[in-house]
């Protein structure tokens, strides 16, 4: 038995090796393209490249003289936070093959509900004075529930009438957006002074501490909530019976039905969980950045979640690396574009798009894969023959 165990680890290794190789090649192609685009479009390519590749590592840009006193490192962290949430949500939903694209709506509604609650408890509307910690917790909670409610709509529509989740969830994103705009423009939530933003709540509720403990660092509680969500998503998917059933459903729905998984209710459950996380994301982002609500456009974080799920292969464990990477190039691009003469920020979208394309293209590097398989199979066979020969002796 022991003899046979050896080639198995090799086998897994080669599959893992191939997916690593694929990822590396895709990223290399994407980054090469970025470099080419920067060189072509920047006034000072060397400077721009430096900002793009190294910018996010700077905690405080020393170039204060130029008026660029941003905490660049914080850009990176800030871009990472929503990705952690939405990546987890999409990992869970896609694991069950539920292509609910309603995260945008969940984020919208989560932020809106959270903002309103904070305004009521600790803000301008009622001018009540609740404990800020309690207020923040309640805000996050209500935000999450709002998100869960909104994504459960397409799920229930499918359960009841067989409506396509993808279509109805996409439509709900816009419905959520217009609800948010309606609240901002036509209700007591509206701030009469600026006409664009909501009423305000006290700064104490905000989840971000700039110049934390007198240092140059900015502490974002959102990051920790995000990390907790990723850990939850991983444990839920891989360490509980519910997660097991969800994955079963994703791997083979017929099989799931046959072994007794309640396929329909499980499908609804994952979408509600995804929505809860989406809502929490919206709430965290709103409470993390400002003391007012400003949701007049879709955030795009929902789509980022899909990107993240693809990067991590639906395994939340890999989300940390994936989000760190994408957030890094985004922060880099942003820093680069704010410098004078720098190329535009949207460059990252091209890079991301290209990487995703190569990750999803099934036949990409297929010949290399094939060669690896053939080589491996032969090695395995040779080993087996050698073992048999030994036994014969």
């Amino acid at each position: 038995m022991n003899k046979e165990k050896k080639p198995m680890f090799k086998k897994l290794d080669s599959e893992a090796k191939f997916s690593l190789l694929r990822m590396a090649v895709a990223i290399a192609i994407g980054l090469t393209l970025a470099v080419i685009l920067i060189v072509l479009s920047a006034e000072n390519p060397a400077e721009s490249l430096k900002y793009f590749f190294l910018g996010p590592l700077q905690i405080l840009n020393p170039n204060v003289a130029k008026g660029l006193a941003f905490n660049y490192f914080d850009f990176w962290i800030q871009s990472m936070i929503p990705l952690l949430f939405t990546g987890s949500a999409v990992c869970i939903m896609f694991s069950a093959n539920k292509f609910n694209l309603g995260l945008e709506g969940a984020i919208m509604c989560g932020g809106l509900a959270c903002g309103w609650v904070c305004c009521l408890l600790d803000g301008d509307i009622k001018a009540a004075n609740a404990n800020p910690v309690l207020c923040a917790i309640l805000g996050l909670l209500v935000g999450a529930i709002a998100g869960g409610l909104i994504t459960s709509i397409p799920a229930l529509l499918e359960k009841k009438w067989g409506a396509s989740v993808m279509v109805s969830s996409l439509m709900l994103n816009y419905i959520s957006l217009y609800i948010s705009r309606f609240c901002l423009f036509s209700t007591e939530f509206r701030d009469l002074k600026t006409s664009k933003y909501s009423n305000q709540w006290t700064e104490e509720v905000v989840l971000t501490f700039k110049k934390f403990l007198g240092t140059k660092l900015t502490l974002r509680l959102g990051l920790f909530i995000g990390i907790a969500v990723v850990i939850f998503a991983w444990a839920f998917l891989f360490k509980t019976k519910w997660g097991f059933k969800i994955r079963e459903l994703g791997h083979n729905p017929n099989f799931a039905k046959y072994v007794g998984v309640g396929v329909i209710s499980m499908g609804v459950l994952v979408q509600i969980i995804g929505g809860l996380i989406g809502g929490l994301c919206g709430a965290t982002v709103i409470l993390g950045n400002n003391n007012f609500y400003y949701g007049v456009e879709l955030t795009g974080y929902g789509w980022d979640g899909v990107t993240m799920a693809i990067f991590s292969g639906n395994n939340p464990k890999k989300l940390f690396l994936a989000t760190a990477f994408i957030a890094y190039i985004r922060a880099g691009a942003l820093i680069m574009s704010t410098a004078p003469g720098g190329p535009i920020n949207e460059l990252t979208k091209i890079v991301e798009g290209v990487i995703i394309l190569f990750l999803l293209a099934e036949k990409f590097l297929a010949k290399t894969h094939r060669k690896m398989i053939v080589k491996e199979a032969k090695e395995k066979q040779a080993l087996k023959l050698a073992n048999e020969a030994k036994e014969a002796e």
Partner: protein
Amino acid sequence: MENYLVMQDVTKIYNNGIIANDKVNFSAVKGEIHAICGENGAGKTTLMKMLFGIEQPDEGKIIIKGKDMKLNSPTDAIKAGIGMVHQHFMQVPSLTVAENVMLGIEPTKGLVFDMNEAVRRTKECCEKYGFEINPKAEIQDLSVGVKQKVEIVKALVKGCEILILDEPTAVLTPQETKELFVQLKHLRDTGCTIIFISHKLNEVKELCDRVTVIKKGKTIGVWNIKDVTEADISRYMVGVDVDLNIPKAPAQPKENVLTVKNLTVYNEAGKKKVDDISFSVRRGEIVGIAGVEGNGQRELIDVITGLAKYSHGSIVLDGKEVKDMEIADLREHGMVHIPEDRNLYGCARTMSIKDNMVADKIHKDEYNSGLFLNEKKIKEDTDRWVDEYLVLCDSGEQLVGMLSGGNVQKVVVAREFTSPSKLLISDQPTRGIDVGAAEFVRKKMVEMRDAGEAIILVSADLAEVMSLSDSLIVMHGGKINGYFKDVKSLTEEDLGFYMLGVKHMSEEEIKGALHE
């Protein structure tokens, strides 16, 4: 004709790392029927897929009429004069025979399909080779035997000189098989080369001129059929003598576990597939269900196992109506099921052996500690089952998709047999698995019967149904056409007549299937 058809040192490695063919050599001459024998999973089908251009060899040469060929697609193969009849027919049921035969080479008059020409050419081909088929009949109205002839005509009409038949008799009754053989011999006499893939050795012996035996992806040898006996071939295939008879004491049936009464099932198109049938299965007996495919067996099994719903009649499992239970409840109530299609229902190929084995029990307390899965217990149990059920693998962490068919089936069987149960529904439990694995599964079933399990066995393998079952139900046209309390008195030929609906039993006799 030295180099009429030669496959030389052909190697094929699948993407899951399995070496299906390892330097296989095969050759055939003009005008012979050449059998390829081997256990399931030995690599027969892979070899033929390469000859028909569906798969491409990683190494080796294919030589046809002296020319080195590169067959990248079935189109190339057809051009080279090769035709293949698959196990599953590739036909459009709503079209006529002539239309099906002409698919891909449609005769046209201006812009429209020339039906008259299609019928004429189909007829001509049928007459030339002695097939009696009405070109204007619709495929869906034909029996399986005739459908198969259509499939052969389809190949012949395209000018095929080398015809591959992949287990052509698997779906036929003994009578239909006999008829097919007459026609194949006639075809051979007209100069056609026929490659006959089968593991039914008596058929090989009766029909073929030569036989090539393949074992575990390697050629064992080629023999003239008159020089070898069935037992010889069997030994070359398996390596050891296999006893196909499972030792079995007479059944001691007890009380009813499953009672089906006046059950009628309509399929999704609203067609009646199961027509007012009643029977019961008792503790400690194996009830076989035989029938030509498509006579309601699948629909019957689907409703008993909860995969589909029924509205007329009743099915009672141990005192509870099946209709009122979800599959999870049914399983809780003691039903286990080996599904007909192990890849569609029986496993998740992209999950590990461990996960597949524990999938139906994952919610049980013993596999959970608090909120989380008890991974230690899961690993312990599944490791033990891997050993117990002789699953050939590197470890329980290996993906099921990496295993051969027989081992996948062992994973399915291990999962189902290790859950406490009262009723086992065993649907084609040994289809497409090697002799050793099949023997293992059959023995386990007899063991379970002796321990008091009620078992339903559906199988297209007549020898299996007849040797394993204690009593036998024959289905024809959605009805029970015959019930045999004791299978021993039944001959295979007689069973064929009931399957075809040539013979019927009286209503009184059929009522015997329901024990009250």
